[in-house]
């Protein structure tokens, strides 16, 4: 296993790395610009916020629409409930993120940088604002910090723009995409903080980074964030987290908008955005969740469905009413036992909700549910009535 690239240097648990140490370790900040964009295109770096969009292509599009007044938003909202990697990076390597944001600003010709940080991520907020005081006056003038509310949809790129512009962290109708018309009408690059940290390393070395930050959560002995080589088997990341604490029923790969995988298949899965995509899976935001065999899968799914339905921003009818109906049907099956009518309704409503929101929230939830019903098909088909409530 090769050395870590983002978390190299002092132990991340020691907190925020000072700028002097950061520069001594990595050298000065190289120049951003057209050449860096083309380098990012060649390295094939993809976004680490969840959607996995090719970074170089996004920068190209924003640079083309910029007219010298673009805006860069470093997205550290980290609204995914089990994800911790963005917070770990913000609290331990703030200058790597600021370097990436500055390189982005220089490359897409931006005059403003917004650090978009979850308002409950206090340590991350302290670390990033502390690091900012160590930067040049020019940089300090460019950068401001905006606190994002702790909502699942607050990290959606159109929601980040909406909050910066209007103080409301809800998604807006696209098109226009933030890339074309974002903050104040200017072309806006919204990029996850881990992605920006990768850029800061790539700009210095000239070659692709080959690591990814993974949060291992659920039924493991030592849950946490690990930087692993791209292509590491999923089982390897679980070993780093101390191994499974009890027999595993299933693994959720990629967070709540990810896919359920049976353990037998999961352990050998390569943690590689491109390889997972080729298998119809997604690394998403890098969360690997283990559900123990002692838990009722249907009750777990119902609990997550209720959470995701409650996280709808209640703007689009099919999402607000549809997700609630889906969550209620799952909960009925969990509490009162399987009803063939509910199973049919889950299928019908899923199809009705798919693709019918301004943002991708309903699509992500439907994908999660479809995957759950495939992996836990027998559990859904023969679920007994529970008196116990799952949440």
């Amino acid at each position, binding site marked *: 296993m090769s050395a870590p690239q983002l978390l190299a240097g002092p132990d991340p648990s020691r907190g925020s790395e000072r700028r002097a140490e950061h520069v001594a370790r990595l050298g000065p900040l190289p120049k951003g610009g057209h050449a860096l964009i083309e380098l990012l295109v060649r390295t094939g770096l993809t976004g680490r916020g969840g959607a996995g969009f090719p970074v170089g292509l996004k920068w190209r599009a924003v640079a083309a629409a910029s007219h010298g007044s673009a805006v860069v938003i470093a997205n550290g909202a980290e609204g995914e409930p089990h994800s911790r990697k963005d917070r770990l990076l913000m609290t331990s390597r703030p200058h790597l993120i600021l370097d990436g944001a500055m390189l982005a600003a220089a490359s897409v010709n931006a005059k403003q940088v917004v650090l978009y940080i979850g308002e409950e991520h206090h340590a991350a907020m302290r670390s990033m604002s502390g690091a900012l005081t160590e930067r040049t006056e020019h940089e300090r003038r460019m950068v401001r910090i905006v606190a994002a509310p702790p909502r699942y949809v607050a990290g959606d790129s159109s929601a980040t723009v909406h909050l910066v512009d209007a103080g409301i962290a809800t998604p807006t*109708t696209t098109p226009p995409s933030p890339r074309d018309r974002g903050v104040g009408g200017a072309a806006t690059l919204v990029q996850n903080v881990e992605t920006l940290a990768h850029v800061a390393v790539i700009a210095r070395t000239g070659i692709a980074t080959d690591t990814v930050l993974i949060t291992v959560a659920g039924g493991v002995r030592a849950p946490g964030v690990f930087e692993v080589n791209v292509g590491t088997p999923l089982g390897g990341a679980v070993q780093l987290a101390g191994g499974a604490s009890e027999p595993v029923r299933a693994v959720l790969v990629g967070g709540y908008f990810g896919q359920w995988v049976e353990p037998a298949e999961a352990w050998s899965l390569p943690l590689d955005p491109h390889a997972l995509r080729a298998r119809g899976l997604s690394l998403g935001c890098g969360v690997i969740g283990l559900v123990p065999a002692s838990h009722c899968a249907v009750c777990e799914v119902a609990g997550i469905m209720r959470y995701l339905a409650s996280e709808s921003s209640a703007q*689009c*009818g*099919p999402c607000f009413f*549809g997700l609630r*109906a889906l969550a209620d049907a799952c909960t009925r099956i969990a509490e009162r036992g399987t009803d063939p009518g509910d199973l049919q309704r889950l299928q019908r409503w899923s199809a*009705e909700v798919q693709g*019918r*929101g*301004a943002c991708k929230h309903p699509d992500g939830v439907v994908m999660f549910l479809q995957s759950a019903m495939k992996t836990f098909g027998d559990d859904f088909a023969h679920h007994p009535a529970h008196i116990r409530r799952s949440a």
Partner: protein
Amino acid sequence: MTKQFELVVDRIKCDGRGLCAEILPERIRLDSWGYPIVAPGPIPEHLMGLAARAVDDCPVLAIALRRAQVQKQRPK
């Protein structure tokens, strides 16, 4: 070739009043909660009048006609 149009719904503006589905049931049906599901693709010529009425009569201005996407990719 004549211009082709398709109907698009602004999901955030849409309140599920359902007038559009009453005016143009050939292309618009309502989901389980009363929100419109629009058939994909360009509107046939003989329905353009009704499509325009569905757009004009929406009380929250949530539905619009726009040039069909296929049109963009074809050179004139």
